[in-house]
């Protein structure tokens, strides 16, 4: 399926877009640009998922990541500092040393990736995976699934607790009114 020319072209286009956006995330001087670039990169990754016949995961990626996490991140960016305050906002320290370490790690991993004799199975027919994933979550994986929901609940409560402003309650009703 992935052998057709069209598929190859689509893969390379998506890969290029993804890597480009990711590079922008990594190298941009402006944290706002970085955040928006992450949207692009994640969309690209969603495309890669579709190429890998993981339609459900791709939808989750778009909904959760792009729709949820990135928006949250951008909110945080906006809340924490002025957008125009570029100089301090996204300073990168030691790009040389960083590049060197990353390059070394990358070389090692690339070597490992290319030299490993991967065990490949025959490709399975492409079909919708939602049904199977749903069954698996409520069957074999029901315990991790429930625990994950507990983790999410804990994260929710924890986030509320941590970010709550510990300001003393207003002395009169004026401040209350002003806040609402």
């Amino acid at each position, binding site marked *: 399926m992935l052998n057709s020319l069209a598929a190859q072209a689509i893969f390379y286009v998506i890969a290029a877009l993804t890597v480009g956006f990711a590079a922008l995330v990594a190298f941009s001087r402006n944290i706002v640009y970085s955040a928006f670039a992450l949207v692009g990169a994640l969309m690209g990754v969603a495309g890669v998922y579709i190429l890998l016949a993981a339609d459900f995961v791709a939808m989750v990626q778009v909904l959760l990541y792009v729709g949820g996490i990135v928006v949250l991140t951008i909110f945080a960016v906006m809340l924490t500092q002025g957008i125009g305050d570029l100089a301090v906002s996204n300073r990168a*320290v*030691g790009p040389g*040393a*960083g590049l060197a*370490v*990353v390059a*070394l*790690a990358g070389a*090692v*991993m690339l*070597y*490992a990736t290319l030299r490993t004799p991967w065990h490949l199975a025959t490709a399975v027919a492409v079909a919708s995976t939602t049904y199977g994933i749903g069954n698996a979550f409520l069957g074999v994986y029901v315990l991790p699934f429930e625990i994950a929901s507990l983790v999410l609940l804990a994260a929710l409560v924890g986030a509320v607790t941590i970010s709550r402003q510990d300001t003393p309650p207003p002395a009169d009703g004026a401040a209350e009114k002003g806040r609402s």
Partner: protein
Amino acid sequence: MEHPLTVDFVRWIVLLPLAGAAINFLAGARLQRDFGKRVISLVGCGTVLAAFALAVYAWAAMLALPPADRFMLDYLWRWIYVGKLRLDIAFWLDPLSMLMVLIITGVGGLIHIYSTGYMHEDESYWRFFGWLNLFTFSMLVLVLADNLWLMFVGWEGVGLCSFALIGFWYKELSNTAAGNKAFIVNRVGDWAFVVALYSLFTGLGAAGHPTLVIRDVAHWAPALAGMPGYFGMSLVTFVTLLLFAGATGKSAQIPLHVWLPDAMAGPTPVSALIHAATMVTAGVYMVARLNFLFSMAPATMLAISTVGTLTAFFAATIGATQNDIKKVLAYSTVSQLGYMFAAVGVGAYVDGVFHLMTHAFFKGCLFLGAGSVIHAMGGVQDMRLMGGLRKRLPITFWTFLAATLAICGVPPFAGFMSKDAIIWDSFAHGQPALWALLWVGAGITAFYMFRQVYMTFFGEFRGTHDQAHHLHESPPSMTLALVVLGGLSVVGGFVELPGFIGRFDPFGNFLVPVFNSPATRRVAQSAIENRGLEAGFGVLSLALVAAGWFLADLIYRQGSASFEWVGEIWGGALYRTVLNKYYVDEAYAAGPVAAVLETSRASAWFDFHIIDWIVNFAATLAVFSSWLSGRLDRYVVDGLVNLVSNLTLEAGGRMRRLQTGSINGYLYGILAAVTLALLVRAVLRA
């Protein structure tokens, strides 16, 4: 008998008072502070009254059974299984324990209610009811025990509660001393009891039936006949004598009677419940319970009846000289217990138990009446300061009078039925000497009881003006118990009429299955039957009682001085001897107690001079070696420790520079380390 009815409600009779005790002890102080004494009363009385209700239910259930099968077993769990010893926590309800349970929970319940009035001003109200409930529990264990060890647990439990309640007002040294005395004197008896149990178990084991379960002991007791014991006695005689020695401690018989008069230091309801109605009768109960053993030992029986009779007589004479209202009753109790032992000693178990029951009624009533008087007098117990209370405390007076008539044996009151039966029994079983003493004792009883009535309730008031103003009848909670017990003193005897009046003895019939062993039947059949003679002796007794009453009336009501010469016999020596209780306490003080004290003193000297010297020497040695090891510690061990710690500090100071606090720095470290690990692995593979 072979297959007793198994039930599961008897345990609650026992456990309810225990629950009450637990609540009162564990939460009582807080409950009393937060919710008032009412809650404590509710718990304390409620549990005992509920137990009484259950006991009545059990009674009804028992009466529904055919007379020969009136046995119930409530098995809870295994207790001690060691070697051949098999002991269970199980309760055995037969007619005898049924009777005792009814007395304990019934009379006990009344006394609990009485206590809510009597103890109302006391701060430690909760503690009082805790101990009272615990006592009820222990007493129930004693009478319901399925085996002799469990019985001994109850036996000790009542002793403990008695000790705690005698010394209830522990801030007075004399009260705690009285408690100690009761406890220590009882120890002597308890020691004998335990030795008896060991010997009995060994003997039954030698006969091939090692057991301490009472019904099994009853079954195998004939196997003990003829078995040699110790000191030239047969085993049965040895065991029963020791058991009786235990009973003399618990039931205050000569020579271990000295604790009971002192026990009057406790609150009056305690005297009524423990030292009149229930605990002190445990010895009588035990002898009756083990009648199959005692009946096999004529020598022991003779000892029991003799000791009982002597106690009955001498305690009565002492009672006639006392001036403390409770002391008189205490000696009266000792005397009446003597009557019971005289009865069981000659083999008239039913009459002994019968007197036990009527005694619980009238002596409980007398003590509670005395308590009511003391309550009204503001704590005064000396009868010489009383008088004329008849009009101020009418209910107390009438109930006290009823109980007095009962204890004197005036027909048709309860005491007449039971005591006259005992006096006749002693003669019927061929003991005319004992009969004579018991007969005279009955007259003395009448004398001292009416002396008490006249000194307390008749004549002019001899106390202070304040007291006269303060006199009042007790609250209804107290008079209720007086009225009920007074009523029972009047009618309680009709369950067993004397043989010369008519054959009506449901009480005896009820108890027949208990006293049914071959030996007991043999003893019972040895009595002569002569209705005419019995009636004649009854009249004789009545005559003497009337004489005693008349004498008391003459001296203490009419104030005739024509009997002063009695105090002058032998230069007053006789009177002084009786007044001082035959100097038994002094004899104890000069004999065993002095010996113990001297031994203690010698031990103290030894301890002080020899042992202490050794200890001091050892201490000096220890100080020296400590000094040595201190040096070693300071210069050698500490040096090493300091070296290590300085090294650690130095190294830490250098290492801390690595901890930059920069997240990026750490991330560099992680990534570099992972890469390095992969590299090393790849190189090693290659």
